[in-house]
């Protein structure tokens, strides 16, 4: 296996070595050692790559992209290019040898222990400040030092005396030109990235399944199991089987994907602040039927937003009274509010002496040093920073909103430097200068070739009774452009998997040894689903059901209209009156206008304009695209509830929306030519037809997955109730906007046929009656047929069953409001008589209209009652402040 010369590796072309460094010093690349040979721990991978070939690797890369896109792995970007940005993963991993990783892990553990001690002191005795080890301003001027959290280190800890305060810790590392790993920054309050690291590994393993087995890479799942185990151990009051929730700010957060992904991977409930409430000094989850106690909160909401009573009062993301629940020891928050004081480059220069002061190190040196940092609160340091501004990185000690820190002195103009100098002099204690580390490059696959890119590694640790467990690997991010040093996802950086090799000949004491108590398997079952569905999640599921059904109905109708337009491509004024009425009636069914004055009968709007608008116009709230967007965003709000397959279907639908919107742009740009020929129009109509056909397949897949792959818990019930209510309402709307009016036989027959088709019942009708369309028989099939899963009666029966199984307090013999509503609807329908309903009086079928109007009203009331009773317990909080 040992090769003496890497010229054997044709995958590494000569250009790589030329472009790879500015200085020509090969040690600056992760792959090479000091004399330009491929490191032993890279050889197995490079050899495998050689066998596979770069071309094949590029194919796998495309496969990887598709997989991540379909799995909906995203990163939300705010600002100019808003939206969900697909997660970028480079198939070439960053590789560490077992021996080196062991050193890194020991260093990380030391740093985590040290930061934990600092945290305990800062919220406890503050001896570091009082005894002059740490300048007061580094803590007191830091926005993350929350005086409300004072004493949390000493508060009750649910029976565990020696618990750490810093539980989850992440550090950004990079290799400097001296070959040493350096800490660039500490992430302590709610570190993100662990979930992305896991997803990266999962995706890569799917695309290159053999590689991991052959090379021997440490698994990441170990870390998560240990974390689950530790969480279990730290439950308040020693409670067994604690209820853990993941608190997310919601779908607009940039790493929302990860919150949902981790919640479902770990088997925890994903919640938002509004889902939780403090009651009797404890935290509870508002679920459909009752309040469920919450024991542990994995927090992804910034600490100042956690409690509107004691922290930021304008926050809607947290839980009022949470701080008090923490003080009482009734809930454990990971990490506790106040932890962000450690995300503080002002601490860095003092860490070595603090370590020595605590007795953690004998001399003032850490195993894993911080990048050289000068805190401007000290005179000499300030002078140094001001004199070297143009070659340092300037940061504030805490993150400032709306500020562009870090600033790279080397990239600033004279005037900008002068402004910065003034800012530093005005508030020196808020600034640090840091050495600009020219960290190492690592091979990346760029357009089918290996190219060097600068990279940093975020590593993750979780506290154990003794020490910390270190994730063997982490989230590596590399710069998008050659030579660039900014690697953040925001700046277009690409992520990488991180491999720690397991099978090396040298003896190796594993840091990630088995915990004493043994490990529990991860909860892959639906425990999380059944015991922790919040009212908000249920409401979102209900609306996913309604929107999905609405989209399906709209798409069917639009297809029928398209068919007509395409089979007789005439200008509007060339069509005869009956056909126009027919089309207008169908349009009304899509928009839901039930009156006689259809908005489509404006002379200046052509039928195809109307069709485009109803299909594609996002500005039109009754368009198909709008419905689909609403469905996707409701689904996204309960991202953790969907299986991978379901989410793939959702993603396909989202992509299709984008495609449909493109059609709109195309049709608009072709607008000038429209008058001249119908060829272009027909072409675009054809495209829409194709997209609608695809959409129908996706929606059918979604229906199938909902019906067959979801456990029939309360969540499924909510979804299906949504579907049933919407399907019933659609059918009613369809009937009211077309066949309630009385028309000539030709038109009536066409309308009946269209309605049967739109209600997926045409084949049934033909199969069963093999006859002419007969009005009462059609009504029978559509409204009153028990066996037709598309009939109105069928929807109402199912609704009644669902409503019966909803949790509720017994009211004696009295029926609840929603039970009364569905009973009335069913009774009205069942007491009706199709022959009577088919009777005309003048231009209208009065009986039919009356029945359908009443049923529609009852169903709307039912939807509102369900919302009021089960879904929105969420009342907006009010602030009370006395004036002086």
């Amino acid at each position, binding site marked *: 296996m040992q090769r003496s010369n890497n010229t054997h590796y044709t995958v590494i072309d000569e250009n790589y070595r030329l472009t790879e460094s500015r200085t020509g010093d090969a040690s600056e690349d992760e792959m090479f050692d000091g004399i330009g040979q491929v490191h032993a721990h890279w050889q197995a991978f490079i050899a495998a790559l050689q066998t596979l070939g770069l071309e094949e690797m590029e194919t796998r890369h495309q496969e990887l992209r598709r997989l991540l896109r379909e799995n909906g792995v995203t990163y939300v970007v705010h600002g100019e290019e808003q939206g969900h940005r697909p997660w970028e993963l480079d198939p070439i991993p960053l590789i560490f040898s077992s021996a080196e990783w062991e050193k890194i892990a020991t260093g990380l553990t030391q740093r985590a222990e040290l930061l934990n001690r600092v945290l305990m002191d800062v919220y406890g005795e503050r001896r570091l400040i*009082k*005894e002059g080890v740490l300048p007061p301003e580094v803590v007191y001027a830091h926005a993350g030092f929350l*005086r409300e959290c004072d004493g949390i280190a000493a508060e009750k800890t649910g029976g565990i005396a020696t618990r750490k305060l810093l539980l989850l810790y992440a550090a950004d590392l990079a290799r400097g030109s001296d070959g040493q790993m350096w800490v660039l920054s500490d992430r302590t309050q709610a570190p993100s990235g662990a979930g992305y690291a896991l997803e990266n590994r999962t995706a890569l393993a799917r695309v290159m399944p053999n590689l991991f087995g052959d090379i021997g890479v440490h698994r990441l799942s170990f870390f998560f199991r240990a974390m689950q185990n530790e969480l279990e151990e730290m439950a308040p009051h020693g409670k067994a089987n604690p209820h853990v929730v993941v608190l997310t700010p919601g779908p607009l957060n940039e790493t929302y994907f990860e919150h949902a992904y981790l919640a479902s991977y770990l088997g925890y409930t994903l919640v938002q602040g509004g889902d939780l409430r403090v009651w009797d000094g404890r935290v509870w989850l508002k679920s459909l039927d009752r309040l469920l106690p919450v024991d542990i909160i994995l927090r992804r909401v910034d600490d100042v937003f956690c409690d*509107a009573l004691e922290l930021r009062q304008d926050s809607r993301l947290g839980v009022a009274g949470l701080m008090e629940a923490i003080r009482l020891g009734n809930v454990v928050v990971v990490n506790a509010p106040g932890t962000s004081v450690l995300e503080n480059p002002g601490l860095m220069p*003092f860490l070595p002496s603090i370590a020595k*002061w605590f007795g953690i190190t004998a001399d003032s040196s850490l195993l894993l040093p911080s990048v050289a940092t000068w805190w401007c609160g000290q005179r000499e340091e300030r002078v140094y920073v001001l004199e070297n501004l143009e070659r340092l990185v300037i940061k504030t000690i805490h993150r400032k909103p709306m500020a562009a820190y870090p600033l790279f002195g080397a990239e600033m103009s004279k005037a900008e430097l002068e402004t910065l100098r003034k800012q530093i002099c005005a508030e020196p204690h808020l600034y640090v200068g840091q050495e600009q580390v020219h960290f190492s490059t690592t091979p990346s696959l760029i357009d089918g070739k290996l190219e060097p890119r600068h990279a940093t590694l975020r590593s993750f640790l979780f506290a154990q009774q003794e020490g910390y467990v270190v994730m063997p690997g982490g989230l590596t991010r590399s710069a998008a452009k050659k030579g660039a040093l900014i690697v953040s996802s925001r700046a277009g950086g690409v992520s990488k998997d991180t491999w720690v090799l397991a099978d090396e000949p040298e003896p190796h004491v594993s840091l990630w040894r088995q915990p004493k108590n043994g490990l529990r398997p991860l909860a892959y079952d639906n425990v999380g689903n059944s015991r922790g569905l919040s009212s908000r999640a249920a409401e979102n599921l209900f609306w996913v059901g309604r929107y999905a059904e609405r989209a399906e109905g709209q798409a069917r109708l639009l297809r029928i209209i398209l068919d007509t337009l395409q089979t007789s491509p005439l200008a509007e004024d060339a069509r005869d009156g009956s056909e126009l009425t027919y089309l207008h009636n169908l349009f009304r069914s899509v928009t839901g206008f039930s009156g006689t004055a259809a908005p489509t009968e404006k002379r200046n709007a052509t039928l195809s304009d109307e069709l485009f608008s109803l299909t594609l116009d996002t500005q039109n709230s009754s368009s198909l695209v709008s419905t689909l967007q609403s469905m996707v965003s409701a689904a996204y709000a309960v991202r953790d509830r969907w299986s991978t397959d379901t989410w793939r279907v959702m993603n396909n639908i989202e992509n299709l929306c984008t495609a449909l919107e493109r059609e709109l742009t195309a049709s608009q740009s072709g607008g000038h030519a429209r008058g001249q020929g119908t060829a272009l129009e027909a072409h675009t109509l054809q495209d829409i037809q194709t997209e609608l056909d695809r959409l129908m397949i996706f929606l059918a897949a979604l229906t199938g997955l909902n019906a067959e792959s979801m456990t029939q818990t309360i969540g499924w019930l909510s979804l299906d109730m949504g579907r049933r209510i919407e399907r019933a309402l659609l059918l009613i709307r369809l009937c009211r906007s077309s066949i309630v009016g009385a028309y000539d036989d030709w038109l009536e027959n066409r309308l009946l046929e269209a309605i049967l088709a739109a209600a997926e019942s045409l084949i049934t009708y033909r199969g069963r009656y093999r006859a002419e369309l007969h009005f009462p028989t059609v009504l029978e099939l559509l409204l009153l047929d028990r066996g037709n899963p598309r009939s109105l009666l069928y929807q109402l029966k199912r609704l009644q069953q669902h409503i019966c199984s909803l949790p509720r307090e017994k009211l004696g013999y009295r029926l609840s409001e929603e039970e009364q509503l569905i009973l009335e609807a069913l009774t009205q329908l069942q007491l009706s008589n199709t022959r009577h309903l088919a009777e005309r009086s003048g231009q209208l079928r009065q009986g039919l209209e009356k029945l359908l109007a009443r049923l529609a009203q009852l169903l709307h009331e039912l939807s509102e009652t369900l919302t009021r009773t089960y879904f929105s317990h969420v*009342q907006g909080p*009010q602030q009370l*402040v006395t*004036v002086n």
Partner: protein
Amino acid sequence: MHYQITHKTHYTYSNTANLSYNEARLTPRDFARHPYKHYTPSGVLSAWGHLQQVHGSRFVVEPQPTSYREREDFFGNTVCYFAIQRPHQTLTVTVTSQVEVKRHSTAARESSESEAWEAVREQLQTSLHPEILETRQYVLDSPMIPTRLPELREYATPSFAHGRTLQEAVRDLTARLHTDFTYDPGWTTVATPLAEVLAHRRGVCQDFAHLGIGCLRAMGLAARYVSGYIETMPPLGQERLAGADASHAWFSVYVPDVARVPHTPTENYLQSRPSGNSLERTSTASCGEWLDFDPTNNQEPGEQHITVAWGRDYSDVTLLKGVVFGSGTHELSVSVDCRRETC
């Protein structure tokens, strides 16, 4: 002097509130002159140096709260947390306290004339005495007082002539604030920024206190915010003071005792600090004191000022705040009665 203080806060909601969480800083605090004064033979103060002693305090909430707990906050103030978990349309919090104030305005001043304000600033910056290190947080910006506001320093400068003693300078500043600014209830709100108060030269006691603190911090000195009461009925023949029948606010400035501060100026923390376990703890005896000034009334608080709580600014000592669910809009009424008791 003994006082009986009744502070009543009453909310009426337009809708029924189902749930409310509240936090109150309405219980007066005990505090003492620093122990070293005990050894000063001036003899004006009582043995333990109590400046204020609370003999009793009752906290009554209507309707009865489900949870109620008292704790001490970061600044040592008493905080009462309570939650109401049943439908209610009104909320009444009544705090009745018996407080003895032993501070004599003049006595406190005579015993501790400080040195030049520049020397005090230098001490704050360089001393490694634990008390001074802790006090340095009161030089920094706080949520409602952006110390770097250039107008603050501009306004303060005339009072801080070169070589003036700290107390002289602060007395002058207090008098100028009293003269230059108009006491105008209703013009500002809790949220009016300091810059606006400065521009319009009017405000209430909270604004006056914030201005004083801002000026002192702009000069590199340590100052904090004090919330409290002022005697309602003045003794015969004296004028009734502004801020009576309501809660009041003023500020405190930190004055180090020159003789007691070990002068060990060192700027570089990285320089060999002895290791923790063998470190000889610097004397924990106090080395300075906080002196109060009331710019609203141009007074140096003595027996007529009753202290409830202190912090960096108003936001640290908000009397009563809460989060209520379902309340709709609310109306508030507050009454304070603070009378002298003859015993």
